[in-house]
């Protein structure tokens, strides 16, 4: 075990996969300047700075992926994905299907998002749900350095386009990462804490908020299970359903806005497939339907807070068992 940050974990994942597979390369605005270790190890062909142009970065990744390379592109901040939607959604996501399966698009698109840096809504916008909604893509959003490493390695090995979101609030928080090869399959949620009364479902930074809330709930005699989705697409329905069929209560938590977010999907799945087991409404705690403010005090209030999660936990526990 070593204690490293998510940023370092990604660096390790990239280095290991580039070493393992000569088709892996990385490019983006400032990638070669900022990842000098990779540049030194793998040279300027495989670690490239690009012009400031997200569309062609993503399009070039898609074209390269379809013809034999395995690119990882860093698009910096999630709102900049807006300049690359055509290339990601219309090309990388659809051209496999439209071509009747002639091409595959093994590529990873990396972007940061989430509060903590007071950079405001044009740098901080949690748009992961857009890509969950779009066919042909996979979406990953880890919460621990170990997962950053293991999921990035899996994403690079995957033959499909993977959107890989880094919650800014986690980038420089250290965590334990195994010295052995870490490879975490896409599509598997993690149960971060076992519990029996209520399931708290989240991903990225707010997993930690849920864990804090679970502590508080425990003090009040409520046993909360905490699930970290890790991969948002494909979503690990089995783990979700197993937990909620057991606890009968669920609270879904994320920083992204509520409407048509991942929480909506989770709640919809639960209310369809765990209906008979639900003892209380599935609650969602999410960021508001508003752009992310810059001001620190507002930004902190944007993401769901532990006390609100505790409150939601208490609410679903208080809910009487319904009878039709």
């Amino acid at each position: 075990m070593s204690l490293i940050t998510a940023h370092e974990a990604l660096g390790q994942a990239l280095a290991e996969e580039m070493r393992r597979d000569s088709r892996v390369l990385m490019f983006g605005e400032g990638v070669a300047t900022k990842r000098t270790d990779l540049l030194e190890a793998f040279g300027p062909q495989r670690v490239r700075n690009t012009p400031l142009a997200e569309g062609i970065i993503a399009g070039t990744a898609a074209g390269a992926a379809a013809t034999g390379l395995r690119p990882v592109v860093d698009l910096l901040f999630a709102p900049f994905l807006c300049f690359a939607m055509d290339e990601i959604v219309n090309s990388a996501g659809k051209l496999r299907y439209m071509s009747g399966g002639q091409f595959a698009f093994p590529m990873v698109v990396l972007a940061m998002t989430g509060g903590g840096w007071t950079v405001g809504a044009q740098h901080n916008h949690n748009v992961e749900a857009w890509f969950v909604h779009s066919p042909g893509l996979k979406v990953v959003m880890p919460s621990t350095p170990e997962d950053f490493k293991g999921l990035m390695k899996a994403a690079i090995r995957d033959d499909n386009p993977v959107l890989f979101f880094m919650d800014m609030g986690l980038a420089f928080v250290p965590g334990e990462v195994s010295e052995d090869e870490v490879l975490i399959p896409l599509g598997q949620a993690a149960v971060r804490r076992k519990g029996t009364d209520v399931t708290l479902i989240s991903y990225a930074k707010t997993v930690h908020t849920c864990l804090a809330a679970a502590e508080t709930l425990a003090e009040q005699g409520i046993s909360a299970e905490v699930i970290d989705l890790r991969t948002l697409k494909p979503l690990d329905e089995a783990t979700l359903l197993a937990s909620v069929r057991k606890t009968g209560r669920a609270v879904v938590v994320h920083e992204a806005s509520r409407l048509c977010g991942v929480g909506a999907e989770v709640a919809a799945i639960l209310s369809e497939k765990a209906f008979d087991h639900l003892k209380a409404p599935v609650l969602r705690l999410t960021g508001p339907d508003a752009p992310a403010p810059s001001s620190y005090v507002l930004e902190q209030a944007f993401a769901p807070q532990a006390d609100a999660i505790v409150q939601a936990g208490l609410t679903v526990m208080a809910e009487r068992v319904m009878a039709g």
Partner: protein
Amino acid sequence: MHPPRPVPSGPDLLAAMLRIRAYEEKIVAFSEAGPFPHVCTSVGQEAAAVGVVSALRPEDEILTNHRSAGHLLARGADPGRLLAEVMGRSTGYCKGKSGTLHVSVKELGVILTSTIVGGELSLAPGVALSRTMLGGEGIVVCFFGDGAACEGIFHESLNLAAVWNLPVLYVCENNQWQAFVHRKETMVGDHVSPWAAAYGMDSLTVDGNDVESVLKAATHAAAQVRETRKPFLLEAWTYRQRGHMEPHDQSYVDPAEIAAWKEKDPIDRLSARLIASGELTQGDIDALRAEIRGAMDTAADFALASPFPDPSELTADVYA
């Protein structure tokens, strides 16, 4: 190094253009006969397609757009499988999932066809990057329209290809129209080729209705890309003789404009030259046309007889 390919003869070029025309005529006939998918035909632009594609080698790769039948057929695509694709049949090159608008044929190096105008431009540098990094002598040809040149991705694509020295031959078929808008409403100058200067890129405008000029220009341009591994922008000055799509409508076009361009029809021009030079007689040409039309009938029969995709195809091929 590959041996130089034989230069296609005038009659070869004519046959290739006639094949495209006959194919498009088939499309028109179907569209006029009843409900049929909306197809963007390339009638009038055959010289650009045949001239450029004839200058390529087997290892080269092509990206194209919604008006792709010419490029595909010039590259050797089977008209039966193309028609089947248009008709949404399982024997189509993309199992009927593409339809007319995004036909890719990987085995012919016609890859990643996009009907997002500009999509082909966004993908081209990456394909060329694969060529650069994985070896091989092939170059990448990217066909796009004058309309696509107005998309921001044009700027990004050419700039990246220039900065990274990528072997892309950009071919702009400037056919004067961008769906329902004349290019005069969308750009200040008449030509797209001067835009290459911004990227330090060589460029050339060629009479896109003279197949032999196109072939010559494309051969020169392709050789330069092949040798320098740097991009080049070739503009073919041409005209689409029919409406943007079938069933066609040209009510918004000045009839004199259409008439003037029909005077410059690429097939008529080459035919006249070949007859004048004695290489072919009118009879030869008539016979050739008849033979090709016959082949298109067979292709159409194949397509019509082909089955629709199995319902399971609805969700197949989404993920690798």
